């Protein structure tokens, strides 16, 4: 029996590589929710507005005006000149324009089907999954390799991620790009390909696109530059330091550029919410006098918990001249940092709130189904969400735990770094910088998110933090299975090389 099984397995392994295995699995699993009606996706929490405006799309008139309750399948394509096409400039435009091109080619010149957005994301995503799985299992085709491939499917094929594809959220593109970034680094670290330069290019292009995919991603610059440092240690890469430095500088400049390209309205909205849903929250005492002492009229503590756009009736217009003069002009990132520096306990409380939001990958405040599907408003799908649901159930909501994970992971990979540094290998070194970059993202994105926007829409703004965590978990488990956590070149493979 076992012989038959073994021969069958080896046949399977010959025909289907682990990378192909993972790709086929995610293609089926995510293809079902994205393209087979009734399709699933994500409702609009207000983020679509800018994307639609910038790309010459518009909402088709509807009687139902709660945009967040259900997935909207169809949008209109503007025919006349779009005066707002540089309203916000992000790399997300590339994927939207590509989707619109395909839509016009195969479907309609007037109506846009959201599934073309899904198709574009899906295509790039499958490529990313293939490259990443290949880089994680190379050069093996053992049972363990298929286990790793399956883990890739379980973690990165989770519906919490793939639902983003049928939407205009920037997160879809960010997710696909970080997969490519990790695949590029791991391919370089493990010598998957004969030539290095394609993967180096892939890393930098994907990094720049990632940083510029939304204004908030400017903060990822730090992580990506740290990851780039690892590339300096690659061999046979002429003038590599200069090239890598140039690449890192480009990432940095892209980050700075996108940060300052934010329009005034968006900046004001973030400022106000950083104040109303950050500075004024989680304070055990009455914030009125604390605000007074900070140089802002204490009466502004009454704005506690308010949103910039979505409150129907307010005592004062958040975007009005009075608020601008007496609140928004007085507060900025520097002011907020200073406030938190003098209210550390409150800041810690806010970070703990952020920590409870870390595992909330699936967007809970918007619906996953279309309106004719018979589901309740804002209903959540449970299809293939085992990983995200488990993480949500067991991840503790303390910021200190995030810190511990960071220390633990960096500590674990520091061993490989130390050993490879001694032996003049680069695998452990490149991988170490990858892990440092990912783990720093887990730790500083909550800080950045709280300072720049308070608790407003926090779970969504922590998307890259939890994705970094998931990628690190994936890397860690695959290293355990490959026996490469500390000794990057296992004894038995030394002979082969």
């Amino acid at each position, binding site marked *: 029996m076992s012989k038959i099984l073994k021969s069958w397995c080896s046949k399977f392994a010959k025909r289907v590589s682990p990378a192909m295995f993972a790709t086929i699995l995610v293609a089926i699993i995510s293809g079902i929710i994205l393209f087979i009606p009734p399709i699933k996706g994500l409702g609009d929490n207000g983020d679509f507005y800018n994307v639609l405006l910038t790309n010459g799309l518009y909402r088709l008139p509807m009687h139902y005006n709660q945009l967040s309750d259900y997935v909207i399948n169809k949008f209109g394509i503007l025919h006349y000149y779009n005066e707002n096409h540089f309203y916000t400039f992000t790399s997300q435009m590339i994927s939207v324009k590509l989707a619109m091109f395909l839509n016009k080619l195969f479907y309609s010149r007037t109506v846009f089907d959201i599934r073309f957005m899904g198709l574009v994301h899906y295509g790039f995503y499958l490529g990313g999954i293939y490259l990443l799985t290949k880089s994680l299992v190379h050069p093996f085709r053992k049972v363990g390799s298929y286990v790793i491939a399956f883990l890739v499917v379980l973690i990165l094929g989770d519906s919490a991620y793939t639902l983003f594809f049928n939407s205009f959220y920037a997160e879809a593109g960010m997710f696909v790009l970080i997969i490519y970034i990790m695949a590029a680094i791991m391919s370089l670290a493990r010598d998957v390909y004969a030539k290095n330069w394609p993967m180096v290019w892939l890393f930098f292009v994907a990094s720049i696109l990632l940083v510029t995919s939304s204004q908030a991603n400017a903060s990822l610059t730090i992580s990506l530059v740290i990851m780039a440092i690892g590339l300096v240690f690659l061999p046979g890469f002429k003038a590599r330091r200069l090239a890598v430095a140039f690449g890192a500088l480009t990432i940095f400049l892209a980050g700075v550029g996108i940060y300052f390209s934010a329009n005034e309205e968006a900046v004001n909205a973030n400022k106000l919410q950083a104040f109303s849903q950050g500075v004024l929250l989680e304070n055990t005492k009455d914030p009125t006098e604390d605000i007074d002492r900070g140089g802002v009229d204490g009466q502004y503590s009454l704005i*506690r918990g308010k949103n910039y756009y979505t409150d129907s009736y307010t005592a004062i217009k958040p975007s009005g001249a009075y608020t601008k003069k007496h609140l928004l002009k007085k507060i900025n990132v520097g002011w907020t940092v200073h406030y938190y520096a003098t209210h550390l306990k409150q800041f810690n409380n806010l970070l703990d709130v952020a920590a409870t939001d870390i595992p909330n990958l699936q967007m809970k405040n918007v619906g996953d189904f279309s309106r004719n599907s018979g589901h309740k408003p804002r209903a959540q799908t449970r299809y293939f969400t085992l990983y995200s649901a488990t993480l949500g159930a067991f991840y503790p909501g303390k910021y200190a735990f995030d810190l511990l994970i960071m220390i633990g992971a960096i500590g674990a990979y520091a061993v490989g770094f130390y050993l490879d540094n001694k032996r003049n290998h680069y695998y452990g070194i490149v991988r170490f910088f990858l892990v440092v970059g990912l783990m720093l993202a887990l730790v500083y994105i909550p800080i950045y998110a709280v300072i720049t926007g308070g608790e407003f829409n926090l779970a969504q703004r922590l998307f890259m933090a939890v994705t970094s965590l998931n990628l690190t978990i994936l890397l860690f488990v695959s290293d355990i299975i490959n026996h490469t956590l500390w000794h990057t070149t296992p004894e038995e493979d030394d002979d082969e090389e």
Partner: protein
Amino acid sequence: MKNNKFAGSFLVVISLLLLLFIVDPPQPVQAARTDNKVLLVYDSQNNLQKKAKNIDALQRVLTSMNLQIRTVEQADYKKGDLNSSYVGVITMINWRQVGLKNRTFITDRSKFSGIKLHIGNNLLKSEIEALGGSAQDLYRQQFILKNHANTQTLPFSETITVVQNLPKSAKTFGTLSTQQEDQKSYPFGVINGTNGYLPSFRSSGLSLMTEIELIGQLFSRVGKYQPLLTFTNVTPYSNLEYIDDLSLYCYKNEIPFAISTTSVSQNTDLKAFDRFTAVMRSVENRGGIIFLNAPEVSNADNSGQTLSNKFSDYLVTLAQHKVFPVGVSAPGYWNQDKILRNNFLDYGDHWLMLPDPEETAFVHQDNKANVATESFFTMPLSSLKEVKKTSTMAFAIPTALTISMPDSKTHVQMVKRELSRSQLTWYDPANNLTTRIATPSTLLEYKYGNYFANGQQEDTQISSSLLNKEFDDGSPKAAMSKYFRVQGNVFMVFFVIVTVVLLVFIYLGQRVYWNNFRRK
């Protein structure tokens, strides 16, 4: 058959009885008058020249005259809209190049026998005949308006139509004179019987006052009202020092005044709200009255429930802090909107109608304005610069002269100077006013300076320390948070110890592992 009839009538009786129980206790509904409906038809809003503000001002003037105004753009006018249920019709031309085009309306109007007022250019022949004079178009001139020994220089006008050679039965209001040397003068407003004419409409200054005078005469709604001094644009976020300073100034100079302020429905447990209400209480104690101002509208959902809930919350939280609004204030367009009117304005019987902001945020516009027991027409005090403000000056309709709450110390000083210069005799609510605001759960009344909540007289002279005690919600919350804090720290220490132990083990393990190799 008989049975059926009996059952039917029985059902009707039962449902009527049920209705009696279901329907809320009757609120102070304005006596249903049949002689107060007016139709306003305009040619265009003329957004280019921002004439919508004239429509708004006219609507507010009519509301203050207790005229129920229905507004229709000529394109939306349908045959028979103007019928005998209206006492009058007003035609307003905002854009000479557009003018009246709707034939149906022109026919209906010519058949209409009630009061007719024409405002603006494009007088029809029949209208001129009704006024009983001859019309003349004057081009590209600047006029000086004179009325009651006051003068105002009007801005340059392209074309203006004046009516001259009037019969003796006609009454004129104000005169327009040219600035040329020969100083020709023409009548400004004209009334002949039930027909009235105003060559132009301006929403400020002497021309507005003359317009009000004419409209009041035409609809026989002329009264004598002293102006109410009102500070507007107050919010809980305003600089409280300035409010306090100004209210003290008014108190010391025996100037009665009103404040139109918004409120908040949340975060009323904060000190900031205590401070705000403390200042509002001192306003009440210094002879000021408070109008609850309409909140800013954005992202409105279409149910009025949100707004009416907010309104109740505002009232309850303010009343808990012994702040009792006597009426409501809102921009004019709130009266033209079904949702905004029904769920906010209609709760009060005294309104303060403010000019529309640059951008209006209608929720469900219906252009069917309601009236209150009394509604104050507002105009900025500064808009009367050219008008002599004597101590006997009175207005034809209930009027509030507004000052926007100053935003800096120098502005406060300027406002004080402006007040000290004006000779006006201000309206004193404590001598004249009784009002009520009624929601299904709360009834606030104001009677000659005294406040009543749900029928009980209230004392506004209560110190804030007493209030704070009244509304303190105790300390158990603090005890619990302490517990969680301690628990959190215990966990932290635990994790740190575990990490340290782990690191030590890792180090030891490494050494053991390497030593194994060395021996080999």
